[in-house]
């Protein structure tokens, strides 16, 4: 048996992440209880090497493993998002875990495994490989969501996430099976070839694509498959909530963009209309329920649902411009949300249990800690889509892509939704700046060094994308050309 011809350079980013994960996992038992933090440092070092590896692969647009692994710019762009998200999460977690007295080294390899899974998801157009990545990611996340074992809410989050996730996985697997049954291939391009031009689309292909939509709809928390998100987001440790809203969401969308925007969109009739309905339902339900939330993590869970609704617009439109706009949107959203959760995790870590996640905790925060207040305000403005932030640019390019294809009603609904969302984002700002705390204001810990670095990075990135979107947009645009 001869060794297959594998392009290891192309695989290097994901391999580095995977190997770091394995090595650190093995290292955990050998470190004493006091030295678990070593794992964190090894992890982010490994991730930064992987990020460097990604930068080296940009522009190659090659494939390996017989076309099952794609190293195009699309996957490099998303790999970059995942790695940065993982690094920022680790920086946020170091002090958080210590304060919560939950320093277990396994936490970091799990993040790495999840990251590895996401990278696999974004680097293939083969349904089976995508599924493989999806499961690697999901299983790691189930554990991470319940990582605060002693907290009831965290355990509850993990169980709910797992049960419903398993439920959804069933749909995904069946979807892949049906599609394979009809077309005889797992590859998206092959599927289109087999189905395209047929006067009568096979019913099982339609069912298969519907099942895939449901499975991925669950992962991005699209309505009505979103019910897990608020509970999982609220219960998971705060840094993990940030991570879940940034990385896995982007990964699921990356896979969806590959499968639906290039593949099924043109073959299955009325898929576009269905996406239209799902997008509108998702943004509206997310925003409306978010209005009445008093827990900031839960509010941001609904906000995350709403944002999934906006991004689904790219799948309705289905053009290359819309896909690259979605990629930019996901980058902007990931950085903004990670930044917001840095502040949330810091405030949260002021108490051993999770009593510091209500929005009332933030009353008067900006008066005592103006920098934290300003940072969180910036992130809230970015989520609401105010210029000159990344969130504004994301919305701008995405909505523009839709308008250029004539989706006026959809964009009017989306803009109205953004208006509604301003209310609950600014509520936090108002609490921080304009409300006097009733009694003793909450004691927020000092910002540790790593979190400071991460926070500065997030603030700078959100502003940079806001005032200088062109470079990012070009990169996101290139990445889609590679996918087509």
């Amino acid at each position, binding site marked *: 048996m001869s060794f297959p011809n594998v392009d290891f350079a192309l695989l290097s980013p994901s391999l580095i992440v995977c190997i770091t994960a394995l090595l650190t996992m093995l290292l955990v038992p050998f470190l004493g209880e006091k030295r678990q933090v070593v794992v964190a440092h090894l992890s982010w070092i490994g991730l930064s090497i992987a990020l460097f590896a990604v930068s080296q692969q940009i522009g190659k647009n090659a494939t390996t493993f017989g076309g099952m692994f794609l190293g195009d710019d699309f996957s490099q762009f998303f790999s970059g998002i995942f790695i940065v998200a993982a690094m920022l999460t680790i920086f946020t977690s170091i002090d958080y875990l210590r304060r919560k007295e939950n320093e277990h080294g396994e936490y970091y390899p799990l993040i790495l495994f999840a990251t590895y899974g996401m990278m696999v998801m974004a680097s293939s157009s083969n349904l089976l490989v995508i599924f493989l990545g999806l499961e690697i990611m999901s299983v790691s996340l189930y554990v991470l969501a319940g990582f605060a074992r002693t907290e009831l809410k965290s355990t509850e989050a993990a*169980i*709910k996430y797992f*049960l*419903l996730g398993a*439920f*959804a996985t069933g*749909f995904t697997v069946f979807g892949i099976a049906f599609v394979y049954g009809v077309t005889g291939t797992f590859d998206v391009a092959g599927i289109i070839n087999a189905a395209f031009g047929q006067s009568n*689309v096979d*019913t099982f292909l*339609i*069912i298969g*694509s*519907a*099942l895939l*939509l*449901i499975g991925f*709809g*669950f992962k991005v928390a699209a*309505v*009505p*498959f979103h*019910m*897990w998100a*608020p*509970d999982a987001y609220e219960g998971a440790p705060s840094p993990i909530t940030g991570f879940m809203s940034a990385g896995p969401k982007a990964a699921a969308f990356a896979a969806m963009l590959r499968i639906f925007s290039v593949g099924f969109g043109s073959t*299955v*009739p*009325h*898929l576009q*209309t*269905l996406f239209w*309905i*799902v997008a509108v339902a998702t943004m509206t*339900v997310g925003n*409306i*329920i978010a*209005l*009445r939330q008093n827990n900031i993590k839960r509010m941001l869970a609904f906000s995350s649902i709403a944002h999934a609704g906006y991004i689904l617009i790219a799948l309705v439109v289905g053009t290359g411009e819309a896909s690259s706009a979605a990629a930019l949107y996901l980058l902007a959203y990931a950085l903004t949300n990670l930044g917001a959760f840095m502040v949330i995790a810091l405030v949260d870590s002021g108490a051993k249990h999770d009593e510091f996640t209500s929005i009332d905790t933030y009353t008067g925060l900006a008066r005592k800690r103006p*920098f934290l207040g300003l940072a969180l305000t910036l992130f809230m403005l970015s989520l609401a889509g105010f210029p000159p932030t990344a969130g504004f640019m994301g919305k701008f390019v995405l909505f*523009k892509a839709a308008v250029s294809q004539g989706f006026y009603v959809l964009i009017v609904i989306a803009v109205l939704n953004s208006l*509604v969302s301003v*209310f609950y984002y600014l509520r936090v700002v108002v609490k921080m700046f304009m409300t006097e705390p009733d009694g003793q204001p909450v004691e927020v810990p000092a910002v540790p060094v790593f979190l400071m670095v991460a926070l500065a990075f997030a603030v700078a990135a959100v502003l940079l994308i806001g*005032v*200088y979107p*062109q*470079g990012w947009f070009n990169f996101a645009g290139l990445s889609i050309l590679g996918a087509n």
Partner: protein
Amino acid sequence: MELIWLIPLVPLAGFLLNGLFGKSFSKPVINTIACGSVALSFLLSLNAFFGLLRLAPESRSFEYILFSWIPSGSLNADVGFLLDPLSAVMILVVSGVGLLIHVYSIGYMAHDEDYSRFFTYMNLFMASMLVLVLANNFVLMYVGWEGVGLCSYLLIGFWYEKRSATDAGKKAFIVNRIGDFGFALGIMLLFWTVGSVHFATVFNLAPQQLAYGGGIITAATLLLFLGAVGKSAQVPLYVWLPDAMEGPTPVSALIHAATMVTAGVYMVARCNVLYMLAPTTLLVVAVVGMFTAFYAATIGLFQNDIKRVLAYSTISQLGYMFVACGVAAFGAGIFHLMTHAFFKALLFLGAGSVIHAMSGEQDMRRMGGLKSKLPVTYTTMIIATLAISGIPLFSGFFSKDEILWQAFSSRFGSPLLWVVGLLTAGLTAFYMFRLIYLTFFGQRRYDDHAASHVHESPRVMTVPLIILAVLSVIGGYVGLPKALLGGAWFERFLHPVFAKGAEIGKLAEGAGESHATEYVLMLAAVAFVVLMIFTAKRYYLDRAKDSEQFEHGFGGLYKLVYNKYYIDELYDRVIVNPLVKGSNLLWQKFDVLIIDGFFNGAAWLAGQWAISMRKLQTGMVRSYAFVFLGGAIFVIGYLILSR
């Protein structure tokens, strides 16, 4: 020259540093950041200027695109900077005078509690102003335009505990909105008709695409000019500038005399190609400028607040600059802009020094005899006064004379403009010397308590005065006219910027007219100015006791002028009050009942909806799965049934 993008960026960095951490910095650190950043800008500007000089005159235009900022369909705006002779002069004046005023402020603001906030705003102003003059397109210029407006508002209302200061800030902001609205409309009209906001592109395409003297170009230039009228305080939008004197004096010197208020002149000069295409607008510019110059000078005659006299003088001098633009002598306008920046900044800083010495007193009737107490302030202010009055050998003489000569001789000029300009020059000399005599000469009119505090300002304040005084003397020699054996170097330097406009206006370069007329006019102007100075001397120095009698001798005219033609009252009656009443009505009837009702209703509805939807979120996994399944059935069913 590749470094020009740093020129506005350095003060911006200073703004960020002092703005974010200023509260915890000590004063020396704040000073170093604030003044150091402006100094660095000034050095970079010098470097850019000399870089430009090394090039051949016709290739002295350099664009540096930092990044593409708004790439949206056909609207393309870059964060890009344009360095040409015009912007080079502007950045030198802005950063140079700005630097001196920053240094002066160290002394002037030394006892203020909000020290860091002051310098934060000042640096932000510098950054905005430099963006304004360096921008290579209308949109970025607009950013700077609004930025300086914001800083002006913030700095006028710097002492926000004072009601009058916050009111003045608001007045400045609101009046400027009117002008800015016109400016924005003008930009949009240009973009709509020419299809670009990039200066070079617009100036290239406009002569081809828009008819000479046509409706569109006239409308566009008039709208742009409306912006200039607001920002540069011309009739009828000048009312904010006198009130703006509520701000700290260095602010008045920097923003409301030397730099920001000249932005309108700069903009008109920058758009000279467009203005040359619209002769009607040129006429409007010249007439508005001349009227403002004369009108403001008459108000300045009998004001008693030292800063108000200077404020009206500024309005009047800005009028001169517009006259120059209106008669297509853009170079002369910019020349006067520069010399005016020197001597007017000096006058304000000198006035600040006086006010500082008098523990905040601004009424000249309670000053007098300060000459010996404040020798440096006195000497430098005398120099500035001679300059602004147009006494030969001082800078103002050359620039003002150039404008008067152009108003008389230009294709777009008229002897009438010259006559009014001459009268204004006389009035200027009168009120400026009135100021000098009241402040520095005669008997002291302040009480003993104030007398015990009178002192010359510290070195940090007097050194900038001395430097500005030197500039007020020699600043004019760069533009020595040919009639006085000079080479008109300044205008030749600027000429490439205005060449295209001159071509359109068919302005013959260096008309072969004899210098005889020019000498006669010059002599007449100087004679009249000297006469007016002696008049001032007679009534405010020699017969100081009779000065009140002299002023009241003018009867109704005196009252009219003293009360500034009752324009503020008129505006209040005709515009402000009806507006307030009307908006109150709208607010109480329309807003509260209908709009608020609608939105509160919508919010209530959304809230109710949220409550009912939240009930679906039971927390039970089973019900979640049930909803999920329902959705799945819908998705599959929809796709199958709709095929």
